[in-house]
C-alpha cells in the first residue's frame, strides 16, 4: 500500500508525462509533416522548373545519347545533396545520362513503374498542370532521401506530350532529419523539465494535503491516548477543512460526554467514600461495645448479641474495604515502606489468623525486601483466605526471589487443589463486587478483596494475576525491588 504522498506524486508525474508526451508528439508530427511538405514541394518545383528550362523543345530525330541527357541531369543535380539520372527510351535499350542506373542508392521499382505508367500508383503521384511527377521517401543506410521521378514532357501545339525521356532526382533529407532530431531532443528536454516541475508541484500539493492530514492523525492519536482537549486548526473551505471541523465537533462531543461520565463516576466514588467515612463513627461506637454485649448477654439475648457482634465485624471489614478502595480511587493511597524479612512476615501473617496449620509454606529463607507490611499482609491474607474458603487443601504459599522476566523482586504464589475457577469468569475475578455464583446473593467477603489486593500490588509497582492452570487456583504476586530513598 503506497502512502498518500507517493500516490499523489506518482499521479502528478504520470499526468505530466502523458501531457507533455502528447503535446510534444503532436507538435513533432505537425512540424515533420510541414517540413516534408515544404521539401517535397521545393524539390518537385525545382525539378519541374529545371526540366522546363533544360529540355529542348524539339528532340532530334535520332538516337538519344548521353551527350543530350547529361546537361539535363547536371542541371537537376545542381542543388547540393542531390543526384540525378535522366533516361531515354531507345529502340535498342535505355540511354542514360551517364551514371549507372539505378545507382547504389536504389530507386524504388514501384516509382519507376509509376513513372512509366505501368499500373496505377496514385499514392505516389503529384499531378501538376497535366504533368505527372512521382515521389517517394526512402531510407538508405540510415539516411532519409526523397526520390522524385517524372516522365519528361515536350511542348506541342496541343499542350504537352510525354516524351521517351524520364528524369529521376534523389534529394537527401539529412538536414531536415537533423533539424527534426534537434527538435525531438528539445521536446524531450522540455518534457523532462515539465515532469520535474510537476513532481515539485506534486510534493508541494502533497505537503499541503498531508500537513492537515498529519495534524488530524496526531489529534486523533491524542484523543485515543486520552487527551480529549486536542483540536485541529480549520483552514480554508475544502474537504480537509470540513474533515477537521467534523473531527473537532466529534472530539468536543466526546470530551463532553467523557467529562460528564468522569464527573458522575467521581461523584459516585466520592459518595462511597463519604458514606463509608460517615459510617465509621457509629461503627467505632458499635465496635467498642459489642465485646461487652457478647460477654454479658445471657440466654436468648446471647444469640442476638453474638449476631450483632458478628455482623459488626463484617460491617467493619466491608467499610474498611470500601474506604481502602476509595483511597485508591482518589489516588490518596500511599506506601509505608519498611525493610522486612518476607518469610518471617508471611509466617507472622499466617499465625495471626491461625492459619499456620492449614497452609503449607515453601519460603525462600532470609529473603529481605522493601514492602509496605500492612499492604503485603492484606494481599497475602486475601489470597490465602480465598484459597481456604473456596479451594481445597492443600493450600500452599511459595515465596521465591525473582529475577526474570519482570526484573529483580519477589514472587509469591498461593495455590490450592480445588476445582479451580471456571475459565469464563477468570477474567472477572479482580472486578469489584464480582460474584462467581449469581445465586449467592451475599458472600462472606466484601467482594472487594481481590480488587484491593491487585491495587496494593500495583501501588508497589508490582502485579497480581491469576495463573492459567488446569486444576486448582493459583495466584501469583510479583513485587519489584524498591530502592531505599536516598534521604
Amino acid at each position, binding site marked *: 500500500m503506497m502512502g498518500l504522498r507517493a500516490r499523489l506524486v506518482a499521479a502528478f508525474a504520470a499526468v505530466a508525462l502523458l501531457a507533455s508526451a502528447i503535446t510534444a508528439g503532436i507538435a513533432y508530427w505537425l512540424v515533420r509533416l510541414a517540413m516534408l511538405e515544404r521539401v517535397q514541394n521545393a524539390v518537385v518545383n525545382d525539378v519541374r522548373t529545371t526540366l522546363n528550362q533544360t529540355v529542348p523543345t524539339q528532340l532530334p530525330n535520332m538516337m538519344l545519347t548521353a551527350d543530350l541527357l547529361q546537361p539535363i541531369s547536371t542541371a537537376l543535380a545542381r542543388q547540393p545533396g542531390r543526384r540525378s539520372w535522366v533516361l531515354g527510351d531507345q529502340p535498342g535499350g535505355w540511354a542514360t545520362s551517364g551514371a549507372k542506373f539505378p545507382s547504389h542508392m536504389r530507386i524504388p521499382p514501384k516509382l519507376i513503374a509509376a513513372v512509366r505508367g505501368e499500373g496505377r500508383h496514385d499514392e505516389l503521384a503529384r499531378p501538376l498542370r497535366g504533368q505527372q511527377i512521382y515521389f517517394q521517401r526512402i531510407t538508405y543506410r540510415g539516411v532519409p532521401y526523397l526520390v522524385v521521378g517524372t516522365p519528361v514532357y515536350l511542348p506541342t501545339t496541343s499542350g504537352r506530350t510525354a516524351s521517351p525521356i524520364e528524369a529521376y532526382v534523389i534529394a537527401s533529407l539529412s538536414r531536415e532529419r537533423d533539424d527534426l532530431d534537434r527538435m525531438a531532443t528539445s521536446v524531450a528536454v522540455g518534457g523532462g523539465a515539465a515532469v520535474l516541475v510537476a513532481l515539485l508541484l506534486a510534493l508541494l500539493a502533497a505537503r499541503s494535503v498531508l500537513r492537515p492530514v498529519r495534524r488530524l492523525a496526531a489529534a486523533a492519536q491524542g484523543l485515543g491516548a486520552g487527551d480529549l482537549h486536542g483540536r485541529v486548526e480549520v483552514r480554508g473551505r475544502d474537504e480537509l477543512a470540513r474533515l477537521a471541523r467534523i473531527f473537532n465537533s466529534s472530539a468536543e462531543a466526546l470530551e463532553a460526554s467523557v467529562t460528564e461520565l468522569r464527573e458522575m463516576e467521581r461523584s459516585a466514588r466520592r459518595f462511597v467514600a463519604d458514606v463509608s467515612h460517615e459510617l465509621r463513627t457509629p461503627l*467505632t461506637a458499635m465496635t467498642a461495645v459489642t465485646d461487652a454485649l457478647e460477654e454479658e448477654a445471657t440466654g436468648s439475648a446471647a444469640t442476638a448479641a453474638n449476631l450483632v457482634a458478628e455482623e459488626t465485624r463484617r460491617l467493619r471489614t466491608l467499610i474498611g474495604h470500601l474506604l481502602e478502595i476509595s483511597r485508591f480511587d482518589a489516588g490518596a493511597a500511599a506506601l509505608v515502606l519498611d525493610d522486612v524479612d518476607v518469610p518471617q512476615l508471611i509466617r507472622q501473617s499466617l499465625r495471626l489468623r491461625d492459619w499456620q496449620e492449614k497452609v503449607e509454606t515453601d519460603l525462600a529463607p532470609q529473603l529481605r525486601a522493601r514492602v509496605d507490611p500492612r499492604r503485603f499482609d492484606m494481599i497475602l491474607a486475601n489470597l490465602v483466605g480465598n484459597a481456604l474458603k473456596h479451594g481445597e487443601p492443600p493450600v500452599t504459599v511459595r515465596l521465591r526471589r525473582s529475577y526474570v522476566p519482570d526484573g529483580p523482586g519477589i514472587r509469591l504464589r498461593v495455590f490450592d487443589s480445588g476445582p479451580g475457577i471456571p475459565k469464563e469468569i477468570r477474567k472477572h475475578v479482580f472486578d469489584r463486587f464480582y460474584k462467581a455464583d449469581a445465586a449467592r446473593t451475599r458472600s462472606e467477603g466484601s467482594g472487594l478483596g481481590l480488587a484491593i489486593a491487585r491495587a496494593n500490588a500495583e501501588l508497589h509497582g508490582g502485579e497480581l494475576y491469576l495463573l492459567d492452570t488446569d486444576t486448582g487456583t493459583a495466584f501469583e504476586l510479583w513485587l519489584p525491588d524498591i530502592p531505599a530513598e536516598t534521604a
Partner: protein
Amino acid sequence: MGPVATILLVEDDPSARAALEFALSRLGHSVTARETGELGLEQVRTQRPEIVILDVMLPGIDGVEVCRRIRADDSLPIILLTARSDDIDVVVGLEAGADDYVVKPVEPRVLDARLRAVLRRVERDPGDRSTHGDLVIDRGTMKVRRAGEDVHLTATELRLLLELSRHPGQVLTRQQLLASVWEHDFLGDSRLVDATVQRVRSKIEDVPSRPRFIETVRGFGYRFVAP
C-alpha cells in the same frame, strides 16, 4: 487485668466518646472524656491523667495541635485515634510527639493492649549505668544526661534509646523495635520508629541530620554506636 490507668479521652462524637469511655471503664480504667481539644488541654492542666487518647479530627484545635501543646512541657503518653493509617495526620502527629496511634474503629482489647504497652515502665536496674562519650544512660534512675545536662525524654523515647543502647553496634530492624518497644505483636508501622528516632536524635545529637549515636542502616534498621 493489671494496673488501672487514669485516661483522658478526647473525642468529639458523642456516641463514640460514650462507647469508648464505657469500654475502657469496663476494662478497669478510670476514664475522663472531653469533647474538644481546648477542654482536653484544660483537663491535662487541672487533673493530670496518666495517658491521653486523642482523636485527630477535632473541631477547633485538632488532635495534632493538642499533642504539640502537651508535648511543649510534658512527656505525658499520648495515643492518637485516627481515621486512616496512611493519613498524613499520623506522620504529623508522630512528629509532634505522639507515642502511638490506633485506627478507628478500634477493638477495645487492641486499644487496651496499646495503652498498656505505652504505660509499661521499663524495669529499673540500679547497677546499670553506661557512658557513651558525653552521653550517660542511667538505668537505675531512668535518666539520660548529655554533656552534664538532663535530657527530657518521653517514656517511649527512653525505651527506644535503652533498647538500642543495650545492643551497641548491633542493627535492630524496625519490626524488632516495634515488637520490643511498642509491643506490637505484628506488622507495626515503621513510621512510629522513624518518628521516634528523629525525636530522640533531636534531643541527644549535636547535628540530628548527621547522627553520631543512632545510625540509620539502610535496608535494615537502626544501630546504636558508642563513639
